[in-house]
């Protein structure tokens, strides 16, 4: 199953609007937007632009923070983490494409804390699917999905961004 | 001891007058007749040797059975069993035991242990210098009278050429043979492999061929000066062969041997720091190997020995350069000789001469030939495919790169002084 370009765009707009009202409501100015590689970075960059902030979003590669290293090892071609400004006493908007088990988010939060002590971390995801294994949920979600265990959802991109549901073996 | 008749064997007897299919009659440890029972044997045991090769028992110019002193590595009993399983009936015993064999009492001790074990015969080499120190010559005549067959300084260096000259002169006066292991230790400089492709690749300290050939040249010239009977041990490189050939052509009567493993491997075998290939002198280049094979097929190198050096497991359990060198190969000496025949390196008669009549001739002893009246030291060999497996090793030393090798002939019976000392079952 594939979302259309427009369907995906609609979800993006939805999280953009939710984020805007969230920032307003919580009195957050100048948050740092951080995308998680790879899909999260595209969304974060898109949000960065839509919110009218300068430059590109910060990026996180959580490869070195994964908890399944003993099972799967590390992929040698990892994209770098780029954290251009200090996270100390900043509000963080953490962006990912899909929230599934929660382990990636756990690793991302760990990594952020290795850069300093943020004031808050807000999690924004395009899709939140069933299968959570940790007490982690998103603050802002484009859509919640119930998927079979043998399905994966992934974001194709960066331009245009399109969500796709595929069989796990693929 | 039973009287014996070896019937219908194919006699291969390089040093003797008789060969072909014959019956051999043995009484009281002596060959009393070929094809004729001269004294009427007393209910003799008959060995059917049809389709077998019957040849003189092998004479091995260099073995180390580690006794006395290093019985944890091997003993005369354990290694004698291995020796006779390969048809060896006479072994030359190297003096670098603990203590070193440099007195008549030491010679007697070793001879006595061999007598007790009673499997094969021993010829003891005593040390050329006291304590093998390379400096003070040993009481050569005393050692000779006590039974030393020749003198050697083993791997230990002689202090300088003057000492070597004097040792040779002294030995020459008493008609004593010197077994010389040619190596210039300054040039060898604590190396452990051939200086060349492999030493470069693995970063192991190398021994250049010149370390051997320079020592060969020195020894040859000194033997000419002193008139000593010189035997060069374990030749490994083509320059040495050239020098020996040259010596022969100018009338210098030097003899030489090569270790059996030097006819099978070159430096490339060490490949991945395989300690089983740590030997001294080291395996040289493929050109050297080819030249040695050629020299052995001619008359430049006349003898092949096992250079048997058993080690216990610990001695090889170390990084390459720290591990002990040497191969425990005596029990496959004969199968490997036959392999050389199969590889067309030598014909059968020449091959067998390298381990029987030729080494006996170097030692000046009356064995290595089957003839009426001589001691019945005989080996019977059968064509048979077999694999040299780890579990079959008789020697205490399992340090052997030939483990796993297939052979096409095996020793069927070994007879030493008329007694069957080994039978394959």
């Amino acid at each position, binding site marked *: 199953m594939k979302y259309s370009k427009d369907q995906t765009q609609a979800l993006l707009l939805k999280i953009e609007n939710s984020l805007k009202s969230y920032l307003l409501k919580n009195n957050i100015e100048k948050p740092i937007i951080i995308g998680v590689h790879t899909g999260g970075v595209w969304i974060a960059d898109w949000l960065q632009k839509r919110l009218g902030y300068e430059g590109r979003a910060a990026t996180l590669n959580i490869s*070195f923070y994964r908890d399944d290293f003993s099972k799967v*090892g*590390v992929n040698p071609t990892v994209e770098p983490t780029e954290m251009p400004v200090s996270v100390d006493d900043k509000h963080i908007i953490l962006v990912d494409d899909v929230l599934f088990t929660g382990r990636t988010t756990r690793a991302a939060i760990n990594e952020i804390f*290795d*850069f300093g002590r943020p004031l808050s971390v807000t999690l924004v995801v395009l899709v939140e699917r069933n299968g959570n294994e940790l007490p982690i949920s998103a603050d802002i979600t484009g859509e919640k999905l119930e998927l079979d265990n043998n399905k994966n959802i992934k974001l194709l991109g960066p331009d245009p961004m399109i969500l796709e549901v595929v069989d796990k073996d693929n | 001891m039973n009287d014996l008749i070896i019937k219908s064997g194919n006699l291969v007897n390089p040093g003797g007058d008789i060969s072909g299919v014959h019956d051999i009659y043995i009484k009281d440890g002596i060959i009393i007749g070929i094809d004729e029972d001269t004294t009427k044997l007393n209910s003799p045991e008959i060995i059917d040797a049809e389709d077998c090769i019957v040849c003189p028992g092998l004479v091995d110019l260099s073995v180390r059975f580690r006794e006395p002193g290093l019985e944890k590595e091997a003993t005369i009993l354990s290694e004698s069993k291995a020796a006779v399983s390969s048809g060896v009936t006479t072994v030359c015993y190297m003096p670098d035991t603990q203590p070193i064999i440099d007195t008549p009492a030491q010679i007697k001790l070793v001879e006595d242990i061999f007598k007790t074990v009673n499997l094969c015969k021993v010829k003891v080499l005593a040390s050329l210098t006291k304590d093998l120190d390379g400096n003070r010559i040993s009481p050569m005549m005393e050692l000779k009278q006590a039974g030393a067959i020749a003198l050697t300084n083993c791997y230990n260096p002689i202090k300088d050429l003057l000492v070597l000259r004097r040792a040779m002169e002294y030995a020459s006066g008493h008609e004593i043979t010197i077994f010389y292991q040619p190596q210039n230790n300054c040039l060898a400089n604590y190396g452990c492999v051939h200086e060349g492709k492999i030493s470069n690749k693995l970063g192991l300290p190398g021994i250049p061929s010149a370390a051997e050939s320079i020592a060969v040249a020195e020894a040859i010239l000194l033997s000419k000066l002193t008139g000593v009977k010189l035997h060069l041990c374990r030749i490994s490189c083509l320059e040495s062969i050239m020098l020996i050939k040259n010596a022969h052509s100018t009338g210098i009567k030097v003899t030489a041997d090569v270790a059996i493993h030097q006819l099978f491997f070159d430096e490339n075998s060490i490949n*991945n720091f395989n300690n089983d290939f740590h030997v001294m002198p080291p395996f040289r280049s493929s050109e050297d190997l080819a030249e040695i094979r050629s020299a052995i097929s001619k008359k430049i190198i006349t003898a092949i020995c096992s250079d048997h050096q058993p080690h216990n497991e610990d001695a090889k*359990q170390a*990084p390459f350069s*720290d591990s002990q060198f040497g191969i425990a190969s005596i029990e496959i000496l004969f199968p490997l000789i036959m392999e050389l025949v199969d590889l067309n390196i030598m014909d059968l008669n020449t091959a067998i001469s390298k381990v029987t009549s030729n080494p006996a001739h170097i030692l000046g002893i009356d064995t290595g030939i089957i003839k009426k009246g001589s001691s019945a030291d005989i080996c019977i060999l059968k064509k048979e495919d077999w694999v040299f497996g780890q579990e079959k090793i008789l020697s205490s030393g399992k340090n052997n790169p030939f483990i796993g090798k297939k052979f096409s002939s095996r020793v069927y019976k070994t007879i030493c002084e008329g007694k069957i000392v080994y039978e394959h079952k």
Partner: protein
Amino acid sequence: MSENIEIGLDQNIKQSDIVSQKHLRHFLDIENLPKSLILDILDLAESFAGVSGQPVKKVPLLRGKTIVNLFFEASTRTRTTFELAAKRLSADFLNINMDYSATRKGETLLDTLRNLEAMHCDMFIVRHPSSGAAEFISKNVSQNISIINAGDGRHAHPTQAMLDIFTIRKYFPDFKKIKVAIVGDILHSRVARSLMHALRILEVPDIRVIGPKTLLPNGVEHMGVTSYVDMDEGIKGCDVVIMLRLQNERMNSSFIPDEHEYYNLYGFSPKRLDLISKKGIVMHPGPVNRGVEISSEVADGDRSVILQQVSNGIAVRMAILSLSMQP
């Protein structure tokens, strides 16, 4: 005519170093590594280089793993960079300095290994004065322990070579277009040996070794390099010149006459900078003998990347440790 015998033993131990193209089990030498794996290590090291710039210089990748520095030979730099690399990966770390002479006598090397194995370590980083020691240890430890060679005799020092090529790539991304010279005591140098393999695998078209004939291995050309006795001729137009450390004891054993002549012939003096390519760099695995193989002016000058080599050493070793610890 070489009739080498095919024997039943497992001679293919090298194969087990590389479980697949992407996975290492042991890191013993460079000679048999596929090019793709070398590039993977460099790429991963690039990512790890960022970690050292973070306020918290640590990632939890190897948390719960125990790594042992097992050094049978003195070393400060290599030992410390391995320690930092392991600690930045959050591994538990243990330094064991063995007096080699002691292991030679009483306790054998194998006994030492057995004892450490009993402590359930995951990795040994080994430095040893005998060539082949790392290989030997890898053959004699239990299956689940990885061995990293931190220098064995004259044989190999693969992590140093990896950090050198990592540093080279920072300046010259295309290995196929550069000329590299290694200068000094090639004969006794494990760094040179590993570098020659690495550069060959990366298809560097012109690899040179420069030194007096006493310090050039006989037949070094077999390793795919050109040898030069004249340094000026050898470094001419080179993009990378790697100076090797000259051990003091070489002077007392007639390899070279004295420091003075050595410096004149093979020392990197400022005027030699004019001979190398315009963007050429000068490297040295350290520690530097100033005024013996390199002048202070060059060592501290803007063409020298000696300090970069040291800091790159940590990232490269992090990459090698994590790739060797993979399942």
